């Protein structure tokens, strides 16, 4: 509909397919899993299918690296491979890899059928990957739906638990509502600019005063996407959904889809030159930080606490969107990466410790964890310190880049709100550490030894968290290169 006649005539070349190679790879592996699942014996299939999913994620990583040599447009300018999209493809594939590793043990302990679970994880990753390279709002919508529908189902995977079903249903109903907003916004944008292609919208909007319709369109799109990243005031679903969903999946949905949606937001806000960006972001960022942190203060369930913390982190991240493109875009990208590392890791610990039926997810269950499982407690401590933003963890530089970008754009008020919120945040993360080390357990809850898969997942997240905190330079440099892709 938006593509020009000449490009429409062309037949996709081989290079076009390379430019969606990670998506193809993930889909193929997902389909293989769906096909062989019925053939295998249910008891034995868990490991096999998990390993296939692992290879799928690894292959997607390899495909992403390979794809990096072929930047450019594909499929009638609907897909664009640039360093920006590569960054997010890599991130999504890495998150999937680690979440699959975490899930091995979880599947066995919770007695969940593995087939659809791993399949849906990979399909979800397809949608997330596609979101970061889609240049066409309709394609964005399709990718968003692929990823959302997978996560709706995954959220309800603890079938025996009512709270998980509630979580899934709630997520589905509210999520659909939000996607409708997004679609409506796209339609209004089309009305205002005559196109759904991000580049063409940008061309149209660049000169002159944008129409009221364009403002409304941007606002609606933002509502839809704001829901997906759990930004206030569209965050109400988050604690309930996170509480009910399986812990590894919470690790997945709080990082993967979020990273992808932030990628879309970056494209729309910066590349498409969205009107009204500043004030929209300012208000939502301030609200998210404040409501997220205040909400987290009173939680006694660790999953709910981390849910509120993820709202707050969405707020910190949005601060970068209000800044200028040059420090703003790399700051936001760096933040998504380091948030992914620490949060996937934190939920991996939560999922291991929860035990069968996720019984031990309350703060008081963590009492004495430092004594019972010193290694696990130490690792969780590092992730929590990173979430606070203590130096030599990724969380520190993430916050540092975001706030210094905001300061360069003279957003002093927003920065002050952000810094004050970080101080509030320190309190409830520290509370977990205090409980783990300084309270005695009321009942003896045995902690299973760390299995290999989980150990590998924790090692990867830990290494990434520390790496981003000690040598943030390379990732930031790479992210800075994407500025040129987005802003012409």
């Amino acid at each position, binding site marked *: 509909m938006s593509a020009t006649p000449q490009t429409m005539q062309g037949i996709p070349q081989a290079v076009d397919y390379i430019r969606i190679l990670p998506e193809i790879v993930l889909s193929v592996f997902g389909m293989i899993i769906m096909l062989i699942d019925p053939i295998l014996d249910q008891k034995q299939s868990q490991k096999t299918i998990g390993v296939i999913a692992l290879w799928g994620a690894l292959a997607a990583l390899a495909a992403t690296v390979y794809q990096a040599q072929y930047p450019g447009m594909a499929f009638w300018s609907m897909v664009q491979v640039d360093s920006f999209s590569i960054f997010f493809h890599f991130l999504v594939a890495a998150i999937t890899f680690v979440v699959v590793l975490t899930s091995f043990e979880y599947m066995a302990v919770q007695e969940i059928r593995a087939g659809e679970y791993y399949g849906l994880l990979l399909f979800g990753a397809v949608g997330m990957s596609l979101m970061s390279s889609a240049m066409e709002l309709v394609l964005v919508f399709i990718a968003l739906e692929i990823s959302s529908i997978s996560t709706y189902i995954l959220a309800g995977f603890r079938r025996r638990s009512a709270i998980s079903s509630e979580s899934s249903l709630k997520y589905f109903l509210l999520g659909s509502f939000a996607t409708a907003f997004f679609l409506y916004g796209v339609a209004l944008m089309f009305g205002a600019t005559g196109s759904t292609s991000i580049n063409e919208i940008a061309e149209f909007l660049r000169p002159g005063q944008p129409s009221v319709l364009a403002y409304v369109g941007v606002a609606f799109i933002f509502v839809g996407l704001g829901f997906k990243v759990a930004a206030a005031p569209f965050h109400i679903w988050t604690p309930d959904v996170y509480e009910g969903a399986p812990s590894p999946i919470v690790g997945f949905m709080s990082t993967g889809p979020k990273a992808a949606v932030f990628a879309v937001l970056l494209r729309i806000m910066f590349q498409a030159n969205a009107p009204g960006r500043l004030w929209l972001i300012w208000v939502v960022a301030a609200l998210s930080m404040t409501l997220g942190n205040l909400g987290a203060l009173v939680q006694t369930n660790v999953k709910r606490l981390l849910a509120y913390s993820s709202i707050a982190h969405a707020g910190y991240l949005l601060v970068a969107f209000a800044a200028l493109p040059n420090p703003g875009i790399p700051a936001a990208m760096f933040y998504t990466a380091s948030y992914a590392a620490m949060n996937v890791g934190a939920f991996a610990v939560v999922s291991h410790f929860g035990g069968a039926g996720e019984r031990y997810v309350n703060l008081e269950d963590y009492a004495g964890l*430092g*004594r019972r499982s*010193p290694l696990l407690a130490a690792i969780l401590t590092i992730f929590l*310190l990173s979430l606070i933003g*203590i*130096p*030599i963890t990724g969380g520190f530089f993430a916050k*540092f880049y975001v706030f*210094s970008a905001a*300061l360069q754009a003279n957003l002093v008020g927003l920065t002050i709100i952000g*810094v004050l919120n970080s*101080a509030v945040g*320190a309190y409830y993360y*520290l509370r977990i550490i*205090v409980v783990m*080390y*300084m*309270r005695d357990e009321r009942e003896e809850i045995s902690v299973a030894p760390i299995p290999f898969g989980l150990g590998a997942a924790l090692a990867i997240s830990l290494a990434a968290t520390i790496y981003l905190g000690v*040598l*943030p*330079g390379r990732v*930031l*440099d790479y992210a800075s290169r994407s500025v040129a892709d987005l802003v012409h």
Partner: protein
Amino acid sequence: MNSASLDNWILTLVTFIPLAGGLLLMLFPRRDRDIRVFALVVSLLTFIVSLHLPVHFHRTQPGFQFEINSQWISSPNIHYHMAIDGISMWLVVLTTFLTPLCVLISWKSIHERVKEFFILLLILETAMIGVFTSLDLFLFYFFWEATLIPMALLIGMYGHGRKVYAAIKFFLYTMIASMFMLAAILWLYAKVGSFDFVVIQEAIRSGRVENFSAAALWLFLGFFIAFAVKVPLFPFHTWLPDAHVEAPTAGSVLLAGVMLKMGTYGMLRFNLGLFPEESRHNANWIMILALIGIIYGALVAMVQPNMKKLIAYSSISHLGFAVLGIFSFTQAGLDGATYIMLAHGVATGGLFMLAGILYERRHTYDIVEFGGLATPMPAYASFFLFIVLASVGLPLLNGFIGEFLVLSGAFQARAIYGILAATGVIWSACYLLWMYQRVFFGKVKHEINLSLPDLTGREHAALWPAAAMALLMGVAPLLWLNTIDAAVHNVLTPVAQLASKVVGQ
């Protein structure tokens, strides 16, 4: 390796040997004895390696030595910049000197979660050394914050009584205060484009920092409040008694022996170094706060029924001398302040060790529970007397030198301050000797105390170095003072120039 190439790496080595030891310790099986021995070996090794610093220090050469400066992160512009001068060198050595003693003193008293204890202790040592060796403000801030977590965990996990309350209070107080310092550091970075102490100092001196004069007071206060809480200066001191009383012995020794000095060191290095003008303008009220601290700390110490709390309040009093000396802006005052930091580390470290030894035997710090201890524990009583006299400031022991210098500096600055501070010396003799009398003299009041065992060999090993050092520092102060003097001269020159400028006008 010849000494020239070692000079480039020595600070990195000294700083990170304990951390490496701590990480290795994580791999150890939980055999407590091995863990203790290993921790002792690592801390002794660090001490021996750190002796390279005073041995190869060029005493005649002012400024920073053993410098290592290489780019760490390009954006933001952070350098791995470490170096020491005659002041920070001795604080590094003090840290490495006290840590093995802490390992020895915790040998028996820590019997649960032993592995974690020594890991935390070694990580803490790295962080404390890093504070004194860093010249990049970012690096400094990192180490500064990094001391908090292991110390809070040591108090919260291994302390007594209201340990969680004490740990959280300690953490929040110091953390919130250092937020202000972080804000000031970031402001400086935004204007100068570097975290490097030397670069920033240069930029400020040559007036290249825009808007500096408007912001200087706030920046000064940002740094000052972080340091004042750490020292702690009078109205910010309320975390200290709680933290000390509940902390395990090793925690108290390092908290009083080293971490409080991080505050006074910070004032000396950063407040004076970066904001000489503001330091001068604000010296008056700071000196008054220091005086209040000296007298108030001493008076409160006098009425404490709890031995450990008494020593804690005596720290507030003694550190008041150090702050007074620093803001007197006299050569003698700053020399004395630095010397007090070192002497107090040794003497108060010793006092806390002695209190801890008694606690191990009786599980109480209450002075009324004792009396006449000189009869069953003669060796212990002798050590206690020796360290108490050092702390009181008896000539020929280490406390005297620092106090004398600070008092003469304070007299030069303003006679009334000197007079008031001198009463502090008298007070400290009162409360420490009175405490000594109640605990050791007379008849044994409680039956149970008659059977208390005297010092063991391990306890002797922990106390002898402290006592010997107290004596050595008292009789041969020049070993320390000649390097301190040169460094202090360097710190003081810009402040003095400023003063002559003011007078000239």
